[in-house]
């Protein structure tokens, strides 16, 4: 009798423990939803920075004049990350350049792919596999007229109850011929984290 009781108790315990097992669940989420996992630079900050900067650039009267009759050629220099965080600033510039290209007002040269393009041209010219009359010759590419560059800086203050992070993203557009900065703007993000005292 005792054995039956023991076996039943063990079975119930096993079922109960099974019910408590941690399970990993994978779900799809909204890529543009606000992310507040922690105070560090995140996807919402990247989207905000890229969106605001592109809107500002496209709505600027100076840029309106520059793009009135032509599509200027830009090159994006890397964003200088002056924060303590390891942020992929190339991802910010990728978002900005993609939005600008989609606007149809600018064209871009990609300095990150120069060696790959050179390799392809060398293949066309020297491999003997491509019809030389149709192969693309060296020295025909067009250079950039403007350079887009910027900085990402942060100021961090914290004590045991509160943390405050302030990000400032600055972007500038320089005319490579004259050296003049034709447009500049900055956007700010402030994030705070406080301990919440729950009472009931």
């Amino acid at each position, binding site marked *: 009798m005792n054995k039956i009781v023991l076996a039943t108790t063990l079975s119930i315990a096993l079922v109960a423990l099974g019910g408590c097992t941690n399970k990993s669940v994978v779900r799809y989420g909204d890529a543009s939803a606000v992310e507040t996992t922690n105070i560090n630079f995140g996807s919402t900050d990247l989207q905000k920075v890229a969106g605001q900067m592109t809107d500002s650039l496209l709505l600027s009267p100076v840029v309106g004049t520059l793009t009135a009759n032509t599509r200027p050629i830009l090159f994006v220099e890397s964003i200088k990350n002056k924060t303590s965080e390891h942020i*992929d600033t190339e991802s910010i510039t990728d978002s900005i350049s993609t939005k600008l290209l989609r606007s149809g007002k600018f064209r871009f040269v990609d300095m990150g792919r120069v060696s790959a393009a050179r390799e392809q041209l060398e293949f066309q010219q020297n491999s003997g596999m491509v019809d030389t009359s149709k192969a693309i010759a060296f020295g025909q590419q067009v250079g950039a007229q403007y350079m887009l560059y910027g900085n990402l800086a942060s100021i*961090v203050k914290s004590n045991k109850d509160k*943390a405050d992070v302030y990000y400032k993203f600055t972007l500038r557009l320089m005319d490579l011929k004259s050296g003049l900065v034709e447009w500049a703007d900055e956007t700010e993000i402030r994030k705070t984290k406080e301990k919440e005292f729950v009472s009931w």
Partner: protein
Amino acid sequence: MKLISLKILSLFSLLFFTSSAFADYDRNKAVPVEKVLFGTVISVRNINQEELIRDRNNGWHTFGGALIGGVIGNQFGGGSGKDVATILGAIIGGSMANNRHNQPKKVITRLVELMIKVEGGEQFMVIQDFDKQMIFHSNDKVRMIYLANSTVRIDKQR
């Protein structure tokens, strides 16, 4: 026979009690920064705490000489403007502090010595903890981050 067994035992105990001290930096944390310099890695050398002790006994012949006028940063303290030998001493001090109980335990602190040329042309030697999450190579584009706690940390730009 007895002697061979003793040697094998010693070897095993050495292997058993030897541990490598790694320090994976939390590079995704927003902390106060004083300034950031941008540069390129000229050379990388992995060193350990034992080499530093040997060099201390040798009068800081290798590291002390190479680091004069440079900047050194690590998790144990230090920073620009401090005496190099003192900082190297602090690294060893920090490592030795891990060996609290008088057990035959040998802690090897893995460090990486980076020679960096910043955009202005100046060169800096930085010793920091080896981080397996971020392995440095020559010609890597790096950021030299002067943190507000008087330490310096080297990060890859991408």
